[in-house]
């Protein structure tokens, strides 16, 4: 549960920082009229970006809880019975998708819409490739599980966690397809910048979640850190 509590603590720090700017010590009964300028601060995120952030905070806790459950249920000495090379490949595809999206974002900012649409297509292809690789891993485990008379805990957790992560990736692909189609098909496309920025945020978050999950389920250079966070003692 350490990871969950740390995650909650991080959210609490963010919330406390934000609350600190909200004049919670005001005495509202004394200040009729306008206690603070009515003008809206210019740096405010768009509603869509804020909404996505709130959703990701909630989804992030979902994965933190899964990690905690894994650490509680599966001993560190029982790794997932899979060849990690396949997972390194899918990981690099997910990194590629994020990089392509950052490229698309930069291109959209420079006004190069064709480039942006192409980069979006590339990111979507990488995302599909990632899901395909995960599907291969599931199949391998499924066959191994049947051979062993019932799935073992690490394999079951691997399937559960990657399936939930994959569902989020799938939703991200739908969003990407929607933005790409708008960029490619509309005769005079609307400004794609904000939509691409939303996609980038979402895919970056899913990449971060995946790196934690990957480090938990397999031996990676950062696995020691993740073990330290979720298997204290």
């Amino acid at each position, binding site marked *: *549960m350490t990871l*969950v509590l740390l995650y*909650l603590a991080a*959210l*609490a720090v963010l*919330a406390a920082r934000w*609350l600190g700017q*909200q*004049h*919670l*010590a*005001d*005495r*509202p*009964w004394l200040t*009729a*009229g*306008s*206690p*603070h300028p*009515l*003008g*809206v601060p210019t740096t*405010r995120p768009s*509603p869509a970006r*804020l*909404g996505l952030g*709130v*959703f990701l*905070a*909630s*989804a992030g*806790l*979902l994965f933190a*809880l*899964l990690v905690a*459950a894994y650490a*509680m*249920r599966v001993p560190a000495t029982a790794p997932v019975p899979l060849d990690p090379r396949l997972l390194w490949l899918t990981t690099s595809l997910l990194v590629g998708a994020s990089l392509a999206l950052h490229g698309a974002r930069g291109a959209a900012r420079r006004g190069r819409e064709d480039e942006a649409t192409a980069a979006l297509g590339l990111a979507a292809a990488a995302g599909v490739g990632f899901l395909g690789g995960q599907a291969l891993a599931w199949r391998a485990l499924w066959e191994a599980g049947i051979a062993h*008379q*019932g*799935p073992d*805990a690490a394999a*079951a*957790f691997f399937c*559960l966690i990657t399936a*939930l992560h994959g569902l989020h990736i799938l939703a991200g692909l739908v969003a990407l397809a929607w933005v790409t189609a708008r960029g490619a098909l509309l005769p005079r496309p609307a400004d794609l910048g904000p939509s691409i920025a939303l996609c980038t945020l979402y895919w970056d978050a899913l990449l971060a979640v995946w790196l934690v999950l990957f480090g938990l389920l397999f031996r990676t250079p950062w696995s020691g850190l993740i073990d330290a966070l979720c298997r204290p003692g």
Partner: protein
Amino acid sequence: MSDAITGPQDGSALLPEADELYHPHSWWTRYVFSQDAKVIAIQYSGTALAIGFVALILSWLIRLQLGFPGLAAFIGPAEYYQLITMHGMIMVVYLLTAVFLGGFGNYLIPLMLGARDMVFPYLNMLSYWIYLLAVLVLVVSFFAPGGPTGAGWTLYPPQAILAGTPGQEWGIVLMLISLILFIAGFTMGGVNYIVTVLQARAPGMTLMRMPLTIWGIFTATILALLAFPALFVGAVMMLLDRLLGTSFFMPAILEAGQRLRYGGGSPILFQHLFWFFGHPEVYIVALPAFGIVSDLISTHARKNIFGYRMMVWAIVAIGALSFVVWAHHMYVSGMNPYFGFFFATTTLIIAIPTAIKVYNWVLTLWRGDIHLTVPMLFAIAFIVTFLNGGLTGLFLGNVVVDVPLSDTMFVVAHFHMVMGVAPILVIFGGIYHWYPKVTGRMLDARLGQVHFWITFIGAYAIFFPMHYLGLLGVPRRYYETAGLGFVPPSAQSLNAFISLVAFVVGAAQVVFLFNILRSLKHGAPAGGNPWHATTLEWQTPETPPPHGNWGPTLPVVYRWPYDYSVPGAPEDFLPQNQPDPAHAGAVP
């Protein structure tokens, strides 16, 4: 929405053309697939109250069995477990959570904050329809082969998915699917509530000018978005254990001499996940109730709320603390005694901000101009009931007292008082208070009084004696207690009394239903602000407010929401959107 708006000279704010709202075009998009938060609120509340009445009937059947064992031949042990499971689950998740956040949240957040609607109306609509689907899946489980699950509302594995438990075939599967749907639907609504509170407030509506109702709903929504993932994870994992034979929660188990293929799973893991959701859930229900009660008391006592800042801080503090107390539901699960000590301490610390709130409500009433309207009666009844339930919480929060009281009727009495009856009283109070805004007509006050007194006194007659049953050692979840040597025969007569009262209280809810339906047509016209309240929802140009709420101009907020009994004011209150009388018309 208010991005482009600053307060112009006339003290109002124009709706920019670019922000023109989505408008419904047909009967279907206006009343059925509506994206208007007010319609969605009514849909949420109606669905929740409908399924709540099902839960009420289930509770009657539970009491029938407990009070008069063997009288109803169709209630066997299996049916009894199904009754208590479905009653608990419906009341906690599908009624209380849905009414407070989906119902009151949707109706009040945009109106009280001076917004035109939720920020993502389409998502909001989707949220309701997924909630409805979750309720339907739950209802279907009543008709599935084997009936609904009888695992107890906590759904503890391994017994929840083993063959001896009623509803093992379909009931548990449908229950888990329904919960997963509920959480998906709620997440859509929850994101909406938070973004709306953060970004769609009218000009001048600082956080410290928000009514406490909104503070309660806002904080509860954050709790829900952080608590429901735990239930989601638990539900998905149990579903896989049940359907695919994984062993997330299932240890090695013998069933009828046969070793099942499960092995190595951790039932305690489920308990952690469940209560990581389950305890914040108490506050997901309680915080909106706290907020609504604060507003009802202030309005109907014509007095500003005592200690507004403390009330806000207490809400935030309770919300934060509610995430570090979950294992006080697990004292008897065999955990490390030091953990028990830790969780007992955090649990008792919550009493401090909660007590602050109770004192502040009482001090708001102190020397107030108390109008004993029906909403006020319910609000005062809430304070008494919540205090009662909170005090028994101090008993159960301590490990050494909890261990002998665990799984007795004392626990049942405690949680019904504190998170059953108390929030329900607030829901009633809130409906009596805001019904005039929703429909333009008043609810009948005499019927309301009848409803109130029977419900309030009846709830006490039901749950107060139940504490004594618990102290006698009468266990909860038992189909019958006859033949238990340690239960004296007098317990049975008390049980019969409780059941008789429960039948009356249940029947009194029909009065409420009748009042709601009758007043739609025959209620006295309410006008825009029948309670002379200060908050923005009572200042709409039209009642009931149309789509978009505010006509061409958004309100501008000049003051906090509790300016009651203001000396020198033309009436005894100043609405939030009224400039200072001395500087009327000045630039804010």
